[in-house]
């Protein structure tokens, strides 16, 4: 899953990024409203963490302009804690609102919940044929037995499972699993898909040549 952090406090953005990366998220950072809006418009992020007091373009404006185009889940993370400001943020199209200082684990849990809800699977445990994917603990069981996956394999599996029955293109995979700074080779995805098939069964995922992958319900 790929997250955008729009936060002008570099030290805070860095800590957030690190924590989210440790949870297996691909994370991009933007340090002002303009570049944040640009990134959020060009990439299909799974969630955006948005500060309100931003240089160049404030968070409310970023949200307003983003909402004109996209449904990306947005969590506002700000020091502004008055109820009218929370109402303004949520009514402005934000999906969640968290005030600084915040608890890191809570923020991560809220991000996971946001992503689940936006994919239409409010339960943290996804069941797919003989698989049980716990998105909170990031573990996978096959027929009750744990399966060992690398973080990237897990991220790919989660993406496919959340979009089951739908075509997942290679671009989508690159967008959701890698951040801007990661060097991605075109055949890396094929390697991960091959690994997943090896660990979860041959027919787990179908390839649509030239288009992408699909997991049947």
């Amino acid at each position: 899953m790929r997250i955008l952090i729009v936060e002008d406090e570099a030290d805070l953005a860095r800590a957030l990024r690190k924590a989210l990366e440790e949870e297996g998220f691909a994370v991009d950072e933007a340090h002002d409203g303009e570049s944040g809006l640009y990134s959020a418009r060009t990439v299909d992020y799974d969630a955006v963490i948005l500060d309100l007091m931003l240089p160049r373009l404030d968070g409310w404006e970023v949200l307003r302009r983003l909402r004109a185009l996209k449904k990306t889940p947005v969590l506002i993370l700000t020091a502004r804690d008055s109820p009218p400001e929370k109402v303004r943020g949520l009514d402005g199209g934000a999906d969640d609102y968290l005030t600084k200082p915040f608890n890191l684990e809570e923020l991560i849990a809220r991000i996971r919940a946001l992503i689940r809800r936006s994919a239409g699977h409010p339960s943290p445990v996804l069941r797919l044929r003989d698989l049980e994917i716990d998105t909170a603990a990031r573990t996978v069981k096959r027929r009750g037995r744990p399966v060992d996956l690398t973080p990237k394999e897990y991220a790919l599996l989660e993406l496919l499972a959340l979009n089951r029955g739908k075509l997942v293109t290679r671009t989508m995979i690159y967008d959701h699993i890698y951040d801007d700074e990661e060097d991605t080779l075109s055949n890396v995805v094929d390697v991960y898909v091959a690994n997943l098939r090896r660990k979860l069964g041959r027919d787990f995922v179908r390839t649509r040549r030239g288009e992408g992958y699909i997991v049947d319900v």
Partner: protein
Amino acid sequence: MFRSIRASLLFWYALILALVLAAFGAVLYHQLRRSAFQEVEARLWGLAQALAGGTERDGEKGVEMELPEDFLRTFRDQDKDAPYYVIWGPAPGQVFPSRPGLETSPPPPAGLRDRDGRREVVLEGRDGLRILVGQRTRKVLEKLHRFLGKMILAGAGVMILALAGGGFLASRALGPVRRISEAASAISASNLSQRIDVARTESELGRLAATLNATFDRLQEAFERQRRFIADASHELRTPLAVFHSNVELALRKDRTPEEYRAALEVCLKASRRMRGIVDGLLTLARADAGEIALRREPVDLKAVLEETAALLRPMADEAGIVLEVSGGKAAVTGDPDRLREVATNLLTNAIRYNRPGGRVRAAVRVEGSQAVLEVSDTGPGIPEADRPHIFERFYRVDKARSREAGGSGLGLSIAKWIVEAHGGTIGFASRVGEGTTFTVRLPAGPGSGPAAPPLTSPPPPA
């Protein structure tokens, strides 16, 4: 004595009215009584004189009355209230009352007398006769008493009417006071928006209401300012706190390398320095507001202050690629050197921070008449028109986000303004967007100038 103004007003009103009525009644009654008795006396004198004129002795034993029968009949009337007479002859035992049952001895001296509810006149007639004419005053007194009763009744009526009218007037006059007090008591710290309806309060009370409203306006403003200030302060503290908190949480999530711990601690140190800057600034301003900061009074050379400060800040300017120039000559002022250094530090730091890369900061000291002037100009972006009135407000920032990044507490200019004003000086600025800003501090020059003797009154907090 009374809890309500209305009751005490009515009480005094009634008391005064009662006294006035009583005095008036007493005078009137007295006059009336006097004139009634004078009338009776005049009649009695008339009768007595007529009687004396027509009566003479008749031999040794009797008197002869040459008076019309009608006249004499007046005295013989059996009505007890009719006038009567008694005539004494010169010899003892010679008494001739007009009707039986009259007191006949001894013969009274001539004159007017008043006894047993009767008025009597006595005069000397011809031939040594003594003539008394009298009348009971009962009827006169009864008339007077009836009049008195009517007067008391009328007085009571007047009192009742006057009190009712007075009560009505007092209520009318005090109604606005009641409304004002109701409105005022409804206004509390949590609800400062209510106001007294000035349109419904008249004249002097209208002015009172307007005055109270103005006071409430100021109170509300002060509360609002305080509320905003606290909100701003907490907001300012939250951001470094969030940096601190999230970095500690991140570091503790799992085992880290020593380098990672070091990096986390450095970030935390930076965040805590920022919080300290804000807290120190808040404390300074709070103590300044409370008038708790006593400024020293020493001879200070403003130029020396500027040079020391510039020397300290030169590394910061170099790092930012800013040229820092200091010029001017000695300028003696009286004041607190540490606080004046704080002003210079603040102005120079701002000029370095909010400058363009490769920009220039010019700081100069000069004496202008009785003023020592410190001027700091930068080649930064300038202050937009809309922000200019707010520059000295606490936590006010031109570029909300950039300034935080640059590390200011948002209180520097508020503190500088307080220090300059506490020294009896002024601080102002001129700015052109895109060209730069010049801050000018003017302090009274020479010995004997500078801050007033402690305790200092602090300037009011910025609006």
